[in-house]
């Protein structure tokens, strides 16, 4: 086999806002053979997308290729003049973006954009291009392949758009396709269909691919070889088998380790006495009230649940199932229309502003994105200090000491308190976010997707911290996530939500096989496993799949 792509000592520079030049890719070399799929894996900032884009001779605004070569079928994409580069794009190398929803032009029909490549490079007649596109739609198992092209992008679902963008990439018969995290934005049940479609098309046409992802389990299903990246440098390269089974580099081991989280040891907390939180027949939603006293869009339809003292409840489900709404309703941000919330034996008012300060203090909420949850204009000590003065009347020396203690609790150096959120890393910000909730000394913390925006290794460390704090402070958590492994790692009970309803509640140990509701079964079986044969051997009822994913 010959090498289709040869990347040698690639260096990319970026200009920062303050005008400094930093090297973000520091001498990376690897090859891609014909018909082979190579995965680039690493966390945010590892440079995986930047490297993939250089294969198209493209860098994002503010970046430039400063050294090395990117040879694609003998041509150095780094040095090709603009016009030549344009003639290679779409015909020899093509691109599948992370968010197809954003990458489709809202003003043109899908068909027009899918066949645009043939028009730009004058490859075939428009009729021939349309016929070929329809064939590709069929191969990617899209519904209504004959007519789906006539629609506008906003009229089809995210999972379908992602497959349509693959059709757009394949229509020019390229030698290699660049996939840039193409399933990251999708729900697991949708991800499976898209992955299947990609895999079968790529296998049939023997086209080479570069697959960028942060998710080892996804990559394991589709890649022949894996390149592990960190901080713009190559850490390890090897066959998928070898990387998964006998990783050499410590960083690869760390990545794999984060994947195999230890399940939570059975809770020792007593189950006696009244529950800490009890929610009964909660109904909430958005939009104008209707005549029957319910909102137009019901996000929650009669949800009931219980949280025992010192125990954790996980809530899982896919986007739009109402799990975040549930958290917001419990916290009083979105007042419930009907139903009761009982906290520590006392009924809570539906709206936060109608609750007492003490009630608010005991029930804290932590949000997913620390970036938007921390005021960028304030220092960390101000952020942590406010709840201390607000709830506990602390000031001056006493308050400063408590801020130090809080930073110690979440394992952050005390010197960070003078900084602003923008000067912290993602994991550090999430710890501050959590410390602010701790400052109130609550009994229950609602965690809304707190690890979803973090890299795997960082997320694992945050989960460990949460467990530790629970032991020390006798807290309870409601843990909302779409990530089953995270919930499995920290929760005593798991509630599955679908379309605004709680359809099942079960212990995490039963998540593998003990689920009884068909949707729970589908959801649990859709989570990718590190085993490369998982996708091919997975048997799912296609009717079930279309009934519940429908996206």
């Amino acid at each position, binding site marked *: 086999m010959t090498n289709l792509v040869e990347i040698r000592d690639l260096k990319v520079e970026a200009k920062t806002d303050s005008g400094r030049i930093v090297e973000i890719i520091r001498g990376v070399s690897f090859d891609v053979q014909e018909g082979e799929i190579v995965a680039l894996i690493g966390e945010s900032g590892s*440079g995986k997308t930047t490297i993939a884009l250089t294969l198209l001779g493209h860098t994002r605004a503010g970046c430039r290729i400063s050294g090395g070569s990117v040879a694609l079928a003998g041509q150095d994409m780094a040095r090709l003049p603009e016009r030549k580069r344009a003639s290679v794009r779409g015909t020899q190398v093509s691109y599948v973006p992370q968010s197809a929803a954003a990458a489709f032009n809202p003003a043109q029909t899908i068909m027009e954009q899918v066949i645009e490549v043939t028009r730009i490079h004058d490859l075939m007649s428009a009729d021939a291009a349309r016929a070929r596109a329809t064939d590709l739609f069929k191969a990617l198992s899209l519904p209504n392949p004959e007519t789906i092209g006539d629609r506008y992008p906003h009229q089809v679902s995210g999972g379908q758009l992602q497959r349509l963008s693959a059709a757009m990439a394949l229509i020019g018969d390229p030698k290699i396709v660049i996939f840039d995290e193409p399933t990251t934005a999708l729900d697991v049940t949708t991800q499976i269909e898209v992955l299947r479609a990609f895999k079968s098309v790529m296998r049939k046409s023997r086209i080479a691919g570069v697959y960028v992802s942060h998710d080892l389990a996804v990559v394991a299903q589709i890649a022949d070889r894996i390149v592990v990246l960190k901080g713009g440098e190559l850490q390890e390269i090897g066959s998928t088998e070898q990387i998964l089974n006998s990783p050499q580099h410590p960083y690869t081991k760390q990545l794999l380790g984060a994947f195999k989280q230890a399940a939570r040891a059975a809770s020792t907390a007593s189950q006696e006495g009244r529950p800490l939180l009890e929610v009964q027949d909660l109904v909430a939603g958005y939009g104008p009230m209707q005549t029957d006293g319910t909102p137009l869009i019901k996000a929650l339809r009669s949800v009931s649940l219980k949280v025992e003292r010192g125990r954790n409840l996980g809530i899982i489900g896919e986007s739009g199932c109402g799990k975040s709404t549930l958290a917001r309703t419990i916290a009083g941000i979105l007042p419930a229309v009907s139903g009761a919330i009982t906290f520590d034996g006392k009924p809570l008012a539906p709206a936060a502003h109608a609750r007492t300060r003490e009630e608010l203090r005991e029930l804290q909420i932590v949000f997913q994105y620390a970036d938007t949850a921390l005021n960028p204009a304030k220092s960390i000590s101000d952020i942590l200090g406010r709840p201390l003065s607000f709830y506990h009347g602390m000031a001056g020396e006493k308050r400063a000491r408590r801020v130090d203690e809080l930073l110690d609790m979440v394992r952050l150096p005390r010197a960070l308190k003078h900084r602003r959120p923008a000067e912290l890393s993602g994991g550090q910000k999430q710890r501050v976010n959590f410390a602010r909730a701790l400052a109130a000394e609550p009994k229950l913390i609602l965690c809304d997707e707190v690890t979803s925006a973090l890299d795997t290794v960082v997320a694992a460390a945050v989960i460990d911290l949460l467990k530790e704090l629970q032991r020390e402070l006798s807290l309870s958590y409601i843990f909302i996530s779409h990530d089953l492994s995270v919930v499995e790692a920290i929760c005593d009970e798991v509630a599955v939500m679908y379309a605004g309803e709680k359809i099942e509640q079960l212990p995490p140990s039963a998540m593998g096989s003990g689920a009884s509701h068909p949707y729970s079964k589908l959801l649990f079986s859709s989570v990718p496993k590190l085993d490369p044969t998982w996708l091919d051997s997975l048997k799912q009822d296609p009717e079930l799949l279309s009934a519940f994913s429908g996206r």
Partner: protein
Amino acid sequence: MTTIETPAAKSRKPAYRTNLVGLVGMAIIAFWAIIALIAPWIIPYPVGEIVDLDYFGPISQQFWIGSDYLGRDMLSRILMGARYTVGISLVAVSISCFCGVVLGMIAAVSGGWLDTLLSRFLDAMNSIPSKLFGLVVVAAVGSSIPVLVLTLAIIYIPGAFRFARALAVNINTMDFITVARTRGEGTLYLITSEILPNIIGPVLADLGLRFVFIVLLLSGLSFLGLGVQPPYADWGALVRENIGGLPFGAPAVIFPSIAIATLTVSVNLLIDNLPQKIRDRSE
């Protein structure tokens, strides 16, 4: 991964690098501000006194930038004119931005009917063209400096409101506001401690732009004879007084125009060269 994480975020204080052009702009603004403060003590001749036998006198040793249509010293009149142009505009822009920003933040944080009412009303006010509004008010009440200041301020309140509200609405959707609300914080705290620090940069840049608009509108009104009234004269009024000198390019009509241009251009240059962070959205 859509953004490239840069280690620059680790540096302690963000470096606000303002380039040379911006500094020049700032220097000119400072120059006119100081002139406006100290004008009465540095003018070579009393402003109202006819000192040159010639009218529309040329540039000379005695009269550095010539004399006006009555033979008064132009340099003295321009330096004193800075008091009116800069002073009136500064007071007006401060009033309009203060009112606009406070109302904008209240509207954004309160939402609901208060927001709708304020937005509708001020948007409607905004659809009266500014010069027209000035004309109508001056026609009805007559022109005096307090009337001018108030009129200019009222004209630009809707714009300042809309700008501040848009910024505050963006901030208001952030989770840290939700966190503060569920902590039990009141509106005053939300506005002063959570929202204002995040919008103050763009708001100040907007204040600069609005200052330019007000200087231009004030000059325009004075040029039409509806602004500052004799015996006082701002720069626009100086152009009007001396427009008779235009056919032969008298310095008396050119220099007041130059004075206006230096002030407005330098404010624009300063704003255009501010760090991106502050300039964001101020277009």
